[in-house]
């Protein structure tokens, strides 16, 4: 991708953002009535829908029951129309199975599962439109959905993808940047304690730059968490107005 | 029809190591020339309800090729190995349990099925499963001149007109399993069986020597 200049001399990115600038995040909680919790989140052009059911009794194979905490069951899928080429398999291939696993792992760290022994919490996330940072957008959407469901968490889990170009970390990569051969790092953070729930990095990066990149990712996550916090507060206000309290 | 030139009628250098894996209940690797197969046995262990047999153990054989996933050829070889093992194992002593034999091909330089059989037998012995007799595999090839070649290499297999693999039992030296390819006459068949029976003596002696060596330190 020699033709594309990911970061101009003036310090602007392909879509006109600055290096540390996040894409616009818009979200709504409680979009579905029948689900226990749901949320819709847009981060730039990436759009995701998350739905939470539970905690409820174990379904399916009972042998997976844990006697001291809840089981988190995640399924990640992509709409067939979410990408430029039609997606043949919305879920079930290696990549999306792995994504489901990563979501599960992230929320196992964040949700206080020990409060619900022998039960199950289902988190379903669907990408409606994909423009980079799928994992991060899913985590952010799912966090809102879990909060909407009223399931206690240690903290918000916020995720963000960062890249590294010309010795400069770029926050919240879009698809063009992701596929442009940037070293990208996805990080899910519990912002208050600075704890990393998931860390994943692709492509090459010198060890010396790792720290800068993680720092940038953590800052970006904290930025996301502020936005999410606002969304939650606003939603609660709306709800309390509606219920007349 | 006459068998002459005994140079071809030999077994390649062969070797075996038992109990080389820590997880399986029994394991063995068997080497014939460059051909090598690794075998692992689990059992008698818990059986899936759908596969349970009320009066004997369920034996499953899996052959893992070196490259790619198992195909129809492996299925057919699995059947041959399984039924041979079933004939020599005393499965009725462990009803409602499962035995799993996994054969991993490490290198194929001819006589693969016979090597798999030998590895299987050593692994079953290592697992201490009750057996009424031992078995061994011998492959014979008949080249275009009608000569018999025992334990052929892959190159010899390719040039041969017919290829036969027999499993021979240790008590009566009879044919437990037979799998052939190519065309041959009745005479050639009977000669190959006779040769395999002769070759089996060597392999059974080798089994005995390696087990003896293995127990040499516990004889006290």
């Amino acid at each position: 991708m020699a033709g594309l200049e990911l970061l101009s001399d003036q310090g602007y990115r392909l879509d006109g953002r600055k290096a540390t600038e996040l894409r616009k995040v818009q979200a709504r909680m409680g979009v579905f009535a029948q689900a226990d919790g749901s949320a819709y989140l847009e981060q730039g052009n990436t759009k995701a829908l998350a739905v939470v059911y539970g905690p409820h009794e174990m379904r399916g194979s009972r042998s997976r029951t844990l006697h001291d905490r809840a089981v988190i069951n995640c399924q990640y899928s992509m709409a067939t129309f979410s990408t430029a080429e039609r997606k043949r398999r919305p879920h079930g291939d290696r990549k999306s199975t792995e994504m489901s696993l990563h979501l599960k792992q992230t929320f196992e760290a964040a949700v206080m599962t020990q409060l619900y022994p022998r039960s199950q919490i289902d988190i379903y996330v669907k990408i409606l439109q994909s423009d980079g940072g799928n994992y991060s957008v899913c985590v952010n959407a799912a966090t809102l959905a879990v909060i909407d469901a009223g399931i206690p968490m240690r903290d918000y889990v916020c995720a963000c993808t960062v890249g590294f170009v010309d010795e400069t970390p770029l926050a919240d990569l879009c698809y063009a940047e992701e596929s442009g051969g940037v070293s990208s790092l996805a990080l899910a953070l519990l912002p208050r304690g600075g704890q990393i729930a998931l860390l994943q990095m692709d492509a090459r990066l010198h060890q010396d730059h790792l720290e800068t990149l993680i720092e940038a990712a953590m800052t970006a996550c904290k930025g996301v968490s502020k936005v999410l916090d606002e969304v939650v507060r606003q939603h609660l206000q709306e709800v309390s107005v509606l219920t007349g309290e | 029809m006459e068998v002459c030139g005994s140079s071809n009628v030999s077994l390649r250098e062969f070797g075996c190591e038992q109990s080389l894996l820590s997880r399986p209940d029994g394991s063995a690797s068997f080497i014939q020339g460059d051909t090598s197969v690794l075998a692992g046995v689990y059992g008698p262990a818990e059986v899936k309800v759908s596969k349970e047999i009320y009066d004997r153990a369920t034996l499953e054989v899996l052959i893992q090729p070196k490259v790619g996933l198992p195909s129809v050829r492996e299925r057919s070889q699995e059947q041959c190995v399984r039924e041979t093992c079933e004939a020599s194992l005393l499965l009725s002593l462990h009803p409602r349990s499962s035995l799993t034999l996994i054969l991993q091909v490490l290198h194929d330089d001819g006589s693969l099925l016979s090597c798999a059989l030998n590895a299987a037998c050593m692994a079953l012995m290592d697992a201490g499963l009750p057996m009424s007799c031992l078995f061994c595999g011998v492959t014979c090839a008949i080249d275009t001149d009608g000569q018999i070649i025992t334990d052929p290499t892959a190159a010899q297999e390719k040039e041969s007109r017919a290829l036969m693999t027999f499993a021979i039992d240790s008590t009566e030296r009879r044919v437990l399993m037979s799998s052939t390819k190519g065309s041959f006459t009745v005479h050639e068949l009977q000669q190959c069986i006779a040769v395999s029976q002769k070759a089996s003596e060597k392999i059974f002696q080798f089994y005995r020597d390696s087990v003896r060596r293995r127990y040499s330190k516990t004889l006290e």
Partner: protein
Amino acid sequence: MIGSVCVTQSPVSPSFLLHFRTAEPLEYHRSFLKENCRPDGRELSEFRTTTLNIGSISTADGSALVKVGNTTVICGIKAELANPTVEAPGKGYIVPNVDLPPLCSSRFRPGPPGEQAQAASQFIADVIESSEVIQTEDLCIERGKLCWVLYCDMMCLDYDGNVLDACVVALLAALKNTQLPEVTVNTETCTPGVTLEKRHGLRINKHPVATSFCIFDDSILIVDPTAEEESLATAQLTVVTDEEDRLYSLHKPGGTSLSGQKLQECISRATARQREIQKLINKVIHSVKTAQ
């Protein structure tokens, strides 16, 4: 005959026999085998009636239906044009497949082919390769460019044992029945032109015929086993031979061991069976030709 007479003379009721058969199938069979006969009245080395019908499927390029007792196998051959493989540019290829669908017996489940079907497919493929029943060179139309692929699908319609024998007969008869259209390659456009009206048969080099045996109680050999006999047997064995007494397969997947002498007996029986089947196929093929 002895067996049936013996049964008629015995004072037991038919329903007793039925229960006996259900409760102690092995003992039931043993009591017959002791008298050198089998529950269906056959002797130990006797085949069930083999019925052959050729050309019953007109949509296929060649077809045959074979019944051995109740076991019914239908084989259809479809020829398609394809590119030869890089390794063998001067050859066409044959793709056999044996299907044991759930409709032929309750022992088969829907879904991907089970072990038995896969092993049978492999067996048929081995027989085709070993016997060179058709020279694959004959299937080549233009070297490196165009060749025939023969898809030989054998489907079992009713499973009552000995499906391998039936498959081989069906395959052989279907191959003999196959008529391939003439193909000419247009030298300028390099596109093949198929003349459906002009058809020619395949050159069949050999007539391999399979004969299957079962071993009961580690010692008694019976030919052409039924499904029940197969399930009770301690070993199975299939011999494939042709008109020149060449052997193409001695397939014994395991089970009770056999001596060279016993194997020889099986081969002798297989040879007789081969003669019988070849005659049958030839006569049926001939009857079709004369009728036309």
